[in-house]
């Protein structure tokens, strides 16, 4: 639910400049249509990569050669789409622990493998397929909009034109560009109204939580508020549909504290033995940050990456799957930013 809400809001608010329309055709280096020489070079590089890695796996960059060989084997299998969850997690760990140079090699190798055409038939899709693809996506967008309608009605007047997908015709030529800009302005205003509507509905509660409750208590307070009828529907919609179920297990809500004074937001990790998952909820985190939740075994100090998420709204949440055995009541949770820095941490050791 939350993800669909975030996508809906992004379409409404985050209208980024249309890619490709302003660029000359063929400016994109990976275009496959009509570029057989490019495909050939990718295949040649694929062969070269595999030859190099099979010959040099024992003198690899980054330490343990077994791990290095494992990294490249798993990276190759990932592209084929057959990796099981535990192998995918191991690949992520090996990748993160590798030096930048090795990471770049893995990225290049996987791209070369993905582009390979050795086993593929030499057939081309019907030219009309693109229209069917776009129609399918439009249907999915409309369905998503319909699902979000109750929330969308807060503070926004929706016209018939507003729910359609931005078309390529909107961005061709100056007159239509002006129209598109005007439309964008309207959406920006609508976004403000939407935000104002949301804040009017739940703002009092959320602001009180943000301003008056300590970091750990804030997280628990959100949980309590969500269980109350006052704001439960809206807050649950913003944080995640599974919130009440997670809150049934009061003993496993962990508040995370900022690793530095710059981290002013609040984060809670909620576990429920009923689900193989955790719910991460936050208040007042910087938007657009990409964070990774990690579970640290308090006895062995072993680290398991649970998953990545993006902070799209200041108040929000996400549900992440947890592999069996990766977390327990003694787990120390931490959030790591895209630079590998621990920005929030919490658990038995910090309580």
């Amino acid at each position, binding site marked *: 639910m939350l993800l669909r809400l975030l996508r809906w809001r992004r379409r409404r608010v985050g209208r980024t400049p249309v*890619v490709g329309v302003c660029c000359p055709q063929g400016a994109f280096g990976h275009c*496959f249509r009509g570029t057989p020489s490019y495909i050939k070079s990718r295949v040649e590089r694929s062969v070269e990569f595999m030859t190099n890695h099979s010959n040099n796996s024992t003198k690899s960059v980054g330490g343990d050669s077994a791990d290095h060989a494992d990294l490249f084997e798993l990276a190759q299998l990932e592209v084929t789409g*057959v990796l099981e969850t535990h192998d995918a997690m191991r690949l992520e760990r090996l990748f993160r622990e590798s030096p930048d140079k090795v990471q770049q090699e893995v990225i290049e190798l996987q791209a070369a493998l993905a582009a390979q055409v050795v086993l593929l038939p*030499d057939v081309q899709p019907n030219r009309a397929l693109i229209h069917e693809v776009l129609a*399918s996506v439009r249907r999915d967008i409309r369905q998503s909009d319909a699902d979000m309608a109750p929330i969308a009605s807060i503070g926004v007047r929706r016209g018939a034109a507003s729910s359609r997908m931005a078309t390529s015709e909107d961005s061709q030529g100056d007159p239509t560009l002006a129209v598109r800009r005007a439309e964008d302005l309207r959406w920006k205003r609508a976004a403000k109204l939407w935000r104002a509507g949301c804040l009017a509905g739940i703002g009092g509660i959320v602001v009180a939580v943000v301003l008056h409750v300590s970091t750990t208590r804030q997280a628990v307070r959100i949980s309590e508020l969500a269980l109350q009828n006052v704001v439960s529907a809206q807050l649950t919609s913003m944080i995640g549909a599974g919130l009440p179920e997670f809150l049934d297990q009061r003993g496993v809500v962990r508040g995370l504290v900022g690793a530095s004074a710059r981290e002013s937001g609040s984060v809670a990790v909620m576990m429920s033995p009923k689900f193989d998952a955790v719910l991460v909820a936050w208040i007042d985190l910087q938007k657009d940050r990409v964070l990774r939740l990690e579970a640290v075994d308090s006895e062995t100090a072993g680290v398991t990456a649970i998953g990545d998420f*993006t902070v799209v709204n200041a108040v929000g949440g996400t549900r992440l799957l947890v592999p069996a055995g990766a977390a327990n009541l003694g787990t120390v949770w931490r959030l790591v930013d895209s630079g590998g820095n621990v920005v929030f941490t919490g658990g038995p050791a910090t309580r």
Partner: protein
Amino acid sequence: MDQPNEDKTLMNGVAAGHEASLRLLYERFGALVFRNACQVLGSTSEAEDAVQDVFVQIWRTADRYDPSRSKLITWVMLISRRMLIDRLRRRMIRPPMGALDESIGVPAPQTAYASASDPELMEHFTKVRRRMGELPELQREVIDLVYIKGFSLQEVAEQRSMPVGTVKSALSRGLQRLREKFGIEAAG
């Protein structure tokens, strides 16, 4: 703008539902996804349905694309392969595991080999079988079962009473050998 930033901007446009971005994404990868779908599903009509599903899934998950973890082509093809394998598994009347003993060279029902109706695809699968025939038996078998027929590594390992690691290695080496042997030839 460099390629990773360009790709990230493109995916932001896809996530926002911009038709121009979706068109561009399709132009870059549509044909490759379609060829993969034909290879896995063995039917151009079903491949067309699958391509639509793949691009819908790409739209749904576009905001999760991370250029520091993979190139866009890898990300698109990974989603594509997963969805195709899921589709294959849903579609297939799975042959009893015992029947897999005869599966090499004798295609199981409902797989791409058997269901290919287009002459082009039939010819392609004949060529693939011929190429795979030059691989060692285990590698050939694992590629056939996992890469083409969509069985999981675990299923093949259990059926063959061998460690999953052996299956993984065989698949990895087999694909590598195919690329080494035929990659440049196929592209040239």
